[in-house]
């Protein structure tokens, strides 16, 4: 029976190891400094934020879906920011399981992307969004919204328009945070407020704005965004932001979102 024992041993040795672990020693400051940031992973998408909100108290997402067409503008920075806010709105419509809302938002995203001269492959994403919305495939829609945003950003990089990439992320973050802080302000709990603790994201966005060309930094809208982010950093530093902090953050995000939508 040696061969049976041999096969058992072989099968057991080939087993994947599952377990629990606290990783070995702490990271050194040098290792913390050398950590890389990959924007498509380091910055959370609104869907991730909303998943955390749903665990605390599922909001009435249907009431939060926005309708309407963004105001026309020729300012490329503003277009990129609005495009980001629309991506966040797309996630809200997905949470609300509002197929027509997702289709409308997808159409607006593609219209704005056209103004930024993105490639045909991005435009094809609009059809995918429609198809998934028709089939109520909400999980696929979440992935498609993120993929669309990433493809727009990739196109911007390839067209040497990388300055706009940060603005798309910024727009999505502003709209997502505006909505989250509004919901948390209405029914404050420390547990919910802890979701807003995001100083590293604000620091990252500020660094990215700091690296924009001087001309773009002087754009009144971008300058306002920078000043608002600097102010908001104080509101989200505590492990549990206070009720007052949440109110201040919500007010700042709402005025920033309004400025993005209407221009200055």
């Amino acid at each position, binding site marked *: 029976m040696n061969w049976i024992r041999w096969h058992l041993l072989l099968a057991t040795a080939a087993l994947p190891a599952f377990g629990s672990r606290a990783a070995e020693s702490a990271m050194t400051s040098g290792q913390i400094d050398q950590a890389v*940031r990959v924007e498509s992973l380091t910055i959370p998408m609104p869907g991730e934020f909303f998943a955390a909100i749903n665990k605390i108290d599922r909001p009435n997402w249907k009431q939060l879906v926005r309708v309407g067409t963004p105001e026309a503008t020729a300012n490329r920075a503003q277009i990129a920011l609005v495009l980001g806010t629309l991506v966040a709105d797309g996630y809200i419509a997905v949470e609300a399981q509002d197929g027509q809302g997702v289709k409308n938002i997808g159409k607006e995203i593609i219209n704005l992307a056209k103004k930024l001269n993105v490639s045909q492959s991005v435009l094809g994403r609009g059809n995918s969004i429609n198809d998934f919305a028709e089939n109520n495939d909400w999980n696929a829609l979440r992935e498609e919204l993120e993929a669309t945003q990433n493809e727009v950003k990739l196109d911007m990089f390839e067209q040497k328009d990388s300055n706009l990439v940060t603005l798309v992320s910024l727009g999505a973050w502003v709209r997502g945070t505006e909505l989250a802080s509004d919901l948390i302000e209405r029914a404050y709990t420390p547990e919910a407020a802890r979701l807003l*603790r995001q100083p590293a994201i604000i620091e990252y966005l500020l660094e990215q704005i700091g690296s924009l060309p001087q001309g773009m930094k002087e754009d009144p809208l971008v300058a306002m965004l920078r000043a608002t982010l600097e102010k908001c950093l104080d509101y989200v530093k505590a492990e549990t932001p206070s009720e007052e902090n949440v109110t201040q953050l919500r007010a700042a995000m709402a005025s920033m979102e309004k400025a993005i939508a209407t221009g200055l």
Partner: protein
Amino acid sequence: MPPRPLVLWLWPVWLLVVFFSGLFAQVGPSPTPAAPDTDVSARSKALELAGAFSNDGYKIRDGYWPGEIEPNRPQFLEVNLFSGNEYWFSAAVNPPGRKIAVGVFNETGKPMDFQTYEDGQVAAAGFVPEVSGRYYLKLTLLEGEKAQFCLLYSYK
């Protein structure tokens, strides 16, 4: 700790399959030799692992972290996580890398408690943060030589 995906609870079945396939291998040689491992990219291996978690409701983010790793030179990635969400970070390495591990640290560099899955060239860390904010993922090449890796990010 995030619950193990259903697919990964099935390892006893898999053990029996390996055992009995071994018995049948005594009878005659397999008609289809295994494809060389080098044909499979790190990203597709990581996707295969992350796919097991998505069967349990985890959504795979569209982005990924590719790079090169060598022994004694771990790689670190900064991520921002939300308390209450559950995460799995799945990674894979191409040959000549043989074994990797994924670790999770908080913003001060303190090691966190997390669930592990390690199977040679693929590994994953499952983590539920108690505090929202910045964390670091550590990717270590435990065995093998300098190789390409890919890390994917899933949440629910």
